[in-house]
């Protein structure tokens, strides 16, 4: 992966240092939440009575800031957006997320906190925050206890990593700009709502001017960033632009068979045909990955050492973009599965007496493979040539030996 961020070394090799960073980033998170007023239940709950829209304002300014930052970083090639989404975002399960959200909203108005802010409240000495967080711990254990009853619902509406821009089919940065402008429009609406519902005397008149100034500063800043970030669309080094739909280099059925049998650790075989076809017959060691499921696999995350060989029904027009994001070499079985069938699943044609040593060896390999895969009785050995001692041959594909 060419992208410089995130620092994978920090995650994998320097784990302890990574955990120190976790504490530091957590510190900043807690500090900002407290200073935003999120350690106080009354301020948070006021959101739901429209008296104080702070929760909404803070949350959405945070979301668009982080969103624009990420999209720009991806746009200039600093980070691979798809890879980052895979590692940061949990997979989408529509129904449990919808019901979970409703329940969490109810818990929010009952307790006056969400799990994160209850922690900040606890840290600032609020006993209601402490007991809320205790409740969160107990609640997650209860969910574990009743989980067997909810196991089906828990995975209902599974969509894998499912991103809004993929769903809507637009460039991420364009959606990012749209979301930014919608949020800014809603901020202006939120200001109006506050004016209508605020209680008398609640607004501190002394700082009104200063509040207005910083508000204008943030609005102009965010919309400026959103507009400027659209420029990244024109940059040539975006990951999407770096992956032209090219024809894949090919590997012959014999070469593939040799590698699967003799050096299975050097290949990773994906069968892109339908699950039915793949389930019936496939190259030994291959994994059934129908084209539609390729995106769920996290191809950029697979270890790049083995070559990735794809087996299709012979109808693959161009390489799927997802495949090209594999960090190692990608090959395509020449002729698709039909070629494999003709090579490994059909009886090898008999050799003449004049065959060379190489031909004999190839024949022996192919006959053994055919016998192992089909269960047919082994083909007759090639006519013996003088001075050639037949070596015992490995029969089955598979296993690191």
């Amino acid at each position, binding site marked *: 992966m060419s992208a410089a961020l995130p620092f994978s070394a920090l995650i994998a090799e320097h784990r302890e240092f990574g955990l120190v960073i976790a504490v530091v980033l957590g510190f900043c998170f807690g500090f900002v939440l407290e200073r935003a007023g999120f350690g106080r239940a009354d301020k948070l709950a006021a959101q739901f009575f429209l008296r104080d829209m702070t929760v909404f304002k803070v949350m959405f300014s945070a979301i668009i800031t982080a969103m624009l930052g990420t999209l720009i970083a991806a746009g200039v090639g600093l980070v691979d957006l798809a890879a980052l989404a895979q590692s940061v975002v949990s997979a989408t399960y529509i129904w449990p997320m919808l019901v979970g*959200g409703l329940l969490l909203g109810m818990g929010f108005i009952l307790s006056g906190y969400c799990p994160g802010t209850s922690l900040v409240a606890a840290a600032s000495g609020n006993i209601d925050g402490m007991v809320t967080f205790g409740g969160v711990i107990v609640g997650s254990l209860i969910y574990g206890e009743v989980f067997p009853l909810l196991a089906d619902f828990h995975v209902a509406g599974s969509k894998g990593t499912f991103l809004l821009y993929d769903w809507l089919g637009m460039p991420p940065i364009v959606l990012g700009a749209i979301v930014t402008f919608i949020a800014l429009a809603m901020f202006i609406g939120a200001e109006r709502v506050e004016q209508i519902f605020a209680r008398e005397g609640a607004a501190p008149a002394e700082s009104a001017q200063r509040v207005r100034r910083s508000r204008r500063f*943030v609005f102009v800043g965010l919309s400026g960033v959103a507009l400027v970030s659209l420029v990244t669309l024109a940059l040539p080094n975006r990951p999407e632009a770096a992956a032209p739909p090219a024809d894949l280099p090919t590997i012959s059925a014999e070469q593939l068979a040799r590698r699967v049998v003799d050096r299975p650790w050097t290949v990773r075989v994906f069968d892109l045909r339908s699950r039915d076809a793949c389930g019936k017959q496939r190259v030994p060691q291959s994994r059934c990955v129908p084209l539609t499921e390729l995106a769920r696999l996290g191809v950029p995350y697979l270890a790049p050492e083995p070559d990735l060989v794809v087996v299709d029904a012979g109808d693959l027009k161009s390489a799927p973009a997802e495949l090209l994001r594999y960090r190692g070499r990608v090959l395509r079985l020449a002729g698709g599965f039909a070629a494999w069938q003709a090579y490994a699943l059909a009886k090898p044609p008999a050799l003449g007496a004049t065959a060379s040593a190489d031909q004999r060896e190839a024949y022996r390999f192919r006959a053994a493979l055919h016998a192992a895969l089909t269960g047919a009785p082994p083909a007759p050995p090639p006519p013996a040539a003088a001075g050639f001692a037949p070596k015992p041959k490995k029969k089955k594909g598979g296993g690191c030996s």
Partner: protein
Amino acid sequence: MDRSKRFWNPYVAGVALGLVLLSTFLIMGNGLGASGAANRIGIKALAAVAPLHVAGNAHMKGYLQGNPLDNWFVFELLGVLLGGAVAAYTAGRLKRQVIRGAGVRVVTRLSFAVGGGVVMGMAARMARGCTSGQALTGGAMLSVGSWVFMLAVFAGGYGLAYFVRRQWS
């Protein structure tokens, strides 16, 4: 009022929060969260009391491979506690108290707090995250599930708010 004792302007606080979140993405390839760590703490505690029970539970046993507390989110939670305490102390807000609406008894307020916490704990496991892990983190990454969750949180909150208005008036 002393400048440091006021709450930050919400938009400024939001941008600051967004920058923390962005740093977390870019440096660690991770998001921010709160309920995940709560779950791990709970499982660790339960495993100390009833190890066989936890090992036999489909949802929990996965966490016992290695120490459930040896995790990014647990250390991040430690940081949140420290950061929250320092921010509250330096603003003169570090004080033992029960925040409640006028005329609401302490016992009532704490019962609602525990009850709400329990509901949120279950909800967060169901949704694979809470307002931090789903709404903020997944929201910024434009995940469909996270936006569904976020809108549902507001819907649930506004839906129930009317019925508990006495708590907060």
